[in-house]
């Protein structure tokens, strides 16, 4: 279970879980989970376009996820963020539909992008994922304090002279970078559930930012590890296990938080 191709799978999945835990924490905190859904799913249009032109799909993914981040940030200046995200998302999907209709044999590859091929990761795919994971974690670490402030208290951040729009754009770009590399490996749907589930669970367990972020990474790691082992044994798809474990952990942590609140309210 840990040899050959499977070693690559474990490495890639571990890196993906760390990236998802770190960026997902801020996505949940900022309430931009819709953007976290839109960027990886919309970016598949870029892969479709790249394969149409005979380019490496990764170039298309990177271009479209960055374009998506820019589009969301640009439209958000004037419109509500959810409307901006939705319009950018449907535009990307519409272009994707056009690309898919132009090429005749692409549909299969498009589906593999949505669902990923985590058990077919090759050695030369692992290195870029590890490198990119390091880059996005370092980027989040560098802007940790301003990002935290602008996520938790946007008005205070603006009053202290922080450019919250620029921080929003930087965060969306990190998310785009993270997803463009991870999507071909784990798939857009899996990336989304790994970003949101663990982070939401961690947030209801603790209010301390660093602890919550660490917890979210740990939960993402455990989820993906259990998922791979279970998927290897049962031959059921990894996405199923990751989704179910993510939802279960979230429900458990909500139950724990509710129980703790009730205990705290009751007089001693």
């Amino acid at each position, binding site marked *: 279970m840990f040899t050959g191709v499977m070693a690559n799978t474990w490495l890639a999945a571990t890196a993906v879980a760390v990236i998802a835990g770190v960026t997902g924490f801020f996505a949940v905190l900022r309430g931009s989970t819709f953007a976290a859904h839109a960027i990886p799913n919309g970016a598949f249009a870029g892969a479709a376009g790249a394969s149409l032109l005979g380019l490496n799909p990764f170039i298309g993914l990177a271009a479209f996820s960055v374009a998506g981040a820019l589009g969301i940030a640009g439209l958000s200046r004037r419109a509500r963020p959810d409307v901006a995200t939705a319009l950018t998302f449907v535009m990307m*999907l*519409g*272009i994707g*539909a*056009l690309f898919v209709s132009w090429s005749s044999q692409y549909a299969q590859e498009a589906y593999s992008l949505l669902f990923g091929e985590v058990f077919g990761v090759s050695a030369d795919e692992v290195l870029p994922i590890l490198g990119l994971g390091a880059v996005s974690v370092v980027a989040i670490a560098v802007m940790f304090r301003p990002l935290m402030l602008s996520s938790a208290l946007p008005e205070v951040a603006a009053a202290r002279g922080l450019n919250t729009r620029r921080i929003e754009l930087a965060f969306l770009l990190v998310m785009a970078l993270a997803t463009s590399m991870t999507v071909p490996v784990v798939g857009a749907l899996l990336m989304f559930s790994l970003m949101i589930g663990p982070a939401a669970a961690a947030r209801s367990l603790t209010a301390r930012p660093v602890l919550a972020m660490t917890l979210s990474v740990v939960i993402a790691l455990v989820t993906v590890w259990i998922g791979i082992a279970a998927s290897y044994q049962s031959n059921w798809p990894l996405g199923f296990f990751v989704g179910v474990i993510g939802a279960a952990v979230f429900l458990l942590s909500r139950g724990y938080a509710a129980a703790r609140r009730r205990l705290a309210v009751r007089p001693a």
Partner: protein
Amino acid sequence: MFGSIFVITTSTVPALIASALLALVTVVALARVLLLTSLSPDIAAARGVPVRAVGAAFLMALAVSVALSAVIIGAVLSTALLIGPAATALRLAKSPLKAVILAAGLGVVAIWLGIVLAYDSFYWPPAGRGWPVSFFVVTLIVGGYLVTYLPRSGRGDRRRAVSEQQSIDAEQACSPV
């Protein structure tokens, strides 16, 4: 996910119309309450409106219409039609009722034009297979939305600016201070 608007069978049309009517009736019946809870949930709650129940009813109407239309015309189209025209209309119209009517009208225009263009595109390059309807509709909708942000210029606007300035002058002339 993408569906196809060109392969709708005759048997699905009644189901589609029925679900649309259900959603329409729900929204019309709840219109006043929905507007109040959307604009000011606190006032609605203070006036005794069951805010959460209204929200759940609206979500159900939304779910029925979206689920059926997503299966038939695809998730892309149904999301685009749901959000784009409404966002455009809210920027242009001056009252809620006008915004609702304008949104519905814009949606109908976008999908009709999209179908016509897609039908025509069977003769377009590169494949000779036709471009997807969803691409045209999405482009029309997003384009229409972006047009509302263009700086307004022209005589009508200048005249309005002048008349606004005149009314401000008149106000200042009339005020005693």
